[in-house]
């Protein structure tokens, strides 16, 4: 057994928790390893100090108070108490700052009286009565501002609409300035010796503009007046 293997069992050896086989094997290692013997000694000394350690005593009346609260709990009077979120009384006392922000309860006005329910006849299907609890309460959080209508909200909408319109107009202006120059029909001649490759566009005078030639090398462009519609 080497020191790494022994280290796994030193606490068990110090506490007498090893099996006889493990104990004998470790004892043989300890006879020849002073460092591991020192660790066992340290473990036992720490344990000796812990053995003298006692928590502060609890007065009988404190135990009685807890026992009483448990009896009350068992009786069901605190059935709705949440276990993990139960704060102590001291924690419930708000600080002056927190008191300002604490939520308050406002009773909701009682609803108008309901019309008298139809009394079920014996043997009818409706035989259970609904028992209603007290009027519910509404929690009002004072820390959040109430919603109020903004008096100048229409101005914000107006400004936004104007900005959007300006953007659209600027875009249109840019398109207009960058438009292609209008073709001059008079400057173009009909070229019969080239193949018409593709009809490209109608110009601003509704003339058909033809491009002819290769895809990357336009040999000719000509324009034919569009047929008047109708």
């Amino acid at each position, binding site marked *: 057994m080497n020191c790494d293997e022994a280290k796994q069992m030193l606490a068990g050896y110090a506490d*007498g*928790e090893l099996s006889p086989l493990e104990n004998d094997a470790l004892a043989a290692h300890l006879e020849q390893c002073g460092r591991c013997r020192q660790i066992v000694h340290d*473990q036992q000394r*720490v344990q000796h100090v*812990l053995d003298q350690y006692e928590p*502060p005593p609890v007065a009988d009346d404190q135990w009685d108070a807890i026992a009483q609260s448990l*009896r009350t709990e068992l009786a069901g009077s605190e059935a709705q108490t949440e276990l993990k979120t139960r704060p102590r009384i001291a924690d419930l006392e708000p600080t002056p700052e927190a008191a300002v922000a604490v939520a308050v309860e406002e009773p909701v006005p009682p609803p108008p009286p309901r019309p008298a329910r139809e009394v079920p006849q014996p043997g009818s299907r409706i035989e259970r009565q609904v028992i209603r609890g007290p009027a519910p309460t509404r929690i009002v959080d004072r820390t959040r501002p109430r919603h109020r209508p903004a008096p100048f909200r229409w101005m914000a909408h107006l400004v936004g609409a104007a900005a959007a319109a300006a953007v659209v107009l600027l875009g249109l202006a840019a398109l207009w300035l960058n438009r292609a120059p209008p073709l001059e029909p008079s400057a173009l001649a009909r070229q019969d010796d080239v193949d018409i490759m593709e009809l490209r566009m109608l110009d601003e005078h509704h003339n058909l503009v033809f491009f002819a030639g290769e895809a990357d090398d336009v040999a000719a462009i000509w324009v034919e007046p569009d047929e008047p519609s109708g």
Partner: protein
Amino acid sequence: MNGDPEQNGAGDQTAAREAERDGALVERLKEGDTKALDDLFRRHRDAAYGIAYRLVGSREDALDVVQESFIHVMRGIEGFRGQSSFRTWLYRIVTHAALDYRRYRSHRRAESLDAENAPEPAAEGPTQQTPPEEAAEHDLRRAIDEALANISEKNRAALVLYAMEGMSYKEVAEVLGISVGTVMSRIFNARQRLRELLASEIG
């Protein structure tokens, strides 16, 4: 395991009798017997408090943990099938409640804007009239409390259950839901760390 076989046998018989008595009280508690609750509380309150105190480091917090643990016991008693002893089940509840409580309190302290300026909690220590022996005991307790607060949660729980409540490694393993080997490793590491932190007390 080591130890006197006769002594171990007597201890096992005592533990079996205690477990049997707990079982009878549990059955009565399931029927809503308030007296059974009182008896269970009286039998286990000191051990529950010992575990809680050593894990949360404050008497008032430990009493809160004990109260919440027994409330948990009452609410879960119908589902307790006796697969482990009541003692093991209770200690498991107390351990988890104490660790949860400690995390909750740490979280609350971290959230508090005035944490640095908050007054120190009232010392549960000696007064001017305290005899020197009690003052020395208080100093040792405080040193151990501070040292325990500085070892990891897992190692601390294993050490508290074994070294301070007298449970065997096997019982600690049942309470924490880990292997005996892991218990041994955690106790070893916890004591090695305490050896460093309590160097002045241990010498």
